[in-house]
């Protein structure tokens, strides 16, 4: 009495093929730079390119700063909404979802209009100012992921009672945030951080239109001008993303304590 089993397997197979076939194709193509045999030539070329290194490290630095700013903005906000403003949660959630609804191109044109050289805050006037603007843009783009990750983490602990317990023991707000709340949502924060990292590394629109030397525009440039290297870059980008996902798993597993006490 189990005829539906076959359909389950078929659906799974279809899904796997849908996801992996293009990936395998890309991988296979990236290895064919040398005529007639497989080689890592495309990877060698890409990794030896000084521009690759420059743009990649630029994006990595920016990703780390974005994560830092994201954590500083999101963790206290999500905490405060859970603790004191539960009625505002739908509103805050809606706001954090906006970056998914508003295309990055609209966001970046808004930025350019708001922060151009003739505005009160002429961020686009200098390279450093533009870097800062780009970083905040990235923080905005990663908001939906960061907020949701942190909020889920906060849901696993009894925020209100833990806060009250810490307060009754004489702790102030900074101590409560740093010693009680943050350590308990660290795994959630990290998973948000890795998602942010993956987004920043591959982002194109913001970086291209603000004319910053990030990894995304470099990827596009190579893609438009070379044959095998873009495939190699795509595989590298995939590997980085997957490494991030793996790290989330790893961190979760190595945490000594559990946030579910009963």
């Amino acid at each position, binding site marked *: 009495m189990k005829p539906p089993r076959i359909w389950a397997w078929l659906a799974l197979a279809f899904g796997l093929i849908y996801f992996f076939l293009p990936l395998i194709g890309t991988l296979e193509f990236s290895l064919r730079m040398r005529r007639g045999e497989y080689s890592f030539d495309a990877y060698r070329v890409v990794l030896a390119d000084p521009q690759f290194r420059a743009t990649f490290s630029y994006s990595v630095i920016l990703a780390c700063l974005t994560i830092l700013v994201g954590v500083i903005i999101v963790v206290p906000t999500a905490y405060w909404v859970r603790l004191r403003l539960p009625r505002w949660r739908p509103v805050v959630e809606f706001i954090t979802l906006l970056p998914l609804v508003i295309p990055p191109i609209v966001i970046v044109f808004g930025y350019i209009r708001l922060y151009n050289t003739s505005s009160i805050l002429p961020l686009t006037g200098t390279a450093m100012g533009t870097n800062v603007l780009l970083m905040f843009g990235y923080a905005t783009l990663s908001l939906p992921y960061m907020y949701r990750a942190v909020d889920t983490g906060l849901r696993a602990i009894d925020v209100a009672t833990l806060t009250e317990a810490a307060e009754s023991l*004489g*702790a102030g707000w900074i101590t409560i945030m740093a010693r009680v709340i943050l350590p308990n949502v660290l795994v959630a924060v990290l998973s948000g951080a890795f998602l942010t990292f993956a987004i920043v590394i591959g982002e194109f629109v913001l970086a291209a239109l603000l004319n910053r030397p990030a990894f995304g525009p470099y990827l596009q440039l190579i893609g438009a001008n070379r044959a095998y290297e873009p495939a190699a870059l795509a595989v590298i980008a995939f590997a980085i993303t997957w490494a991030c996902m793996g790290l989330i798993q790893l961190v979760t597993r190595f945490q000594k304590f559990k946030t*579910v006490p009963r």
Partner: protein
Amino acid sequence: MAFLEISGLQKFYGPNHVVRDFNLDVGEGEFVSFLGPSGCGKTTTLRMVAGFETPSEGVIRIDGRDVVNLKPSQRDIGMVFQAYALFPNMTVAQNVAFGLKVAGMPRPRIAARVAEMLAIIKLPELGARFPFQLSGGQQQRVALARALAVQPKVLLLDEPLSALDAKIRVSLREEIRAIQRKLGITTIYVTHDQEEALAMSDRIVVMRDGIAEQIGDPFEIYNRPATRFVASFVGTLNVLDARLLDPATGLVTVDGQEIRLARAVRGEAGETIPISLRPQAILLGSGPDPGGRLRGRVDSVSFLGSVVRIRVALDGQNLAVDIFNTAAMRPPKPGETVDLAFATGDVLVLEGAAD
């Protein structure tokens, strides 16, 4: 002078008046319970003492200092929560040390104090464990140690045993009381469990609808309940409608059977008044004169362990009778007619609205 002084305390949540003119003086080292059904305002009152809620009106003084405008962290209180509220990211020792660390105590002294506290709660070997590795009872003991480590002036416990199972509840309540006595710490204990309140407290505040209905020691609360609510909430109580025949001599009839209370009763002749009797104040058989007597038919018999509860039907009303379960005496069977005897002094004439 009282160590903890609460006077004229009021709390409104919008149109809801949840605590009404609450007044209480707690002596140093005293153990006071707030007892009442859920929603009676007992937890709100406790949280106002802790500083987690702001009173709409009133004064709270701890050791002579007005604390109403102080933050919880400045009030010198220790709090134990129903949900334990141990910090999941810290070990038992780190949890106990938290308040000491915040207070800036030097490290060697913290270690000594933590060891001392773990010894008091009899878990000296569990310092390195995380909360998720402990049972509920152990977690609550750690929470108690954590609250006491900072040597607060007042210890507040908000239904600390409600999440535990019955056996641990009884042993832990004895332990909490023993530790409280040993340290001599002024304590407020919130519970909806009357047995817990009776067993632990120096005094009990019975609350209903934000009002302290009666404040007294357990003996007084149980044997001399001031209102019908207190009588029915604390312990089991038979409440019977009686017709008052003669207010001056206290002659009443219950389902046609006369009872002479031998004291004046407030009311008019012919009026129906509620009188009550504890199930254990009634004996089977005809007791000594002069006493109260009733005759009825056994409705049901249930064994409650050391006690047997017999439901006896009169002519329309019925009442419960508790007798000790002894092997020497078989309880009557349903359908049998039994005589009931009681001392008229045990009959309570209650005031206050019925529930």
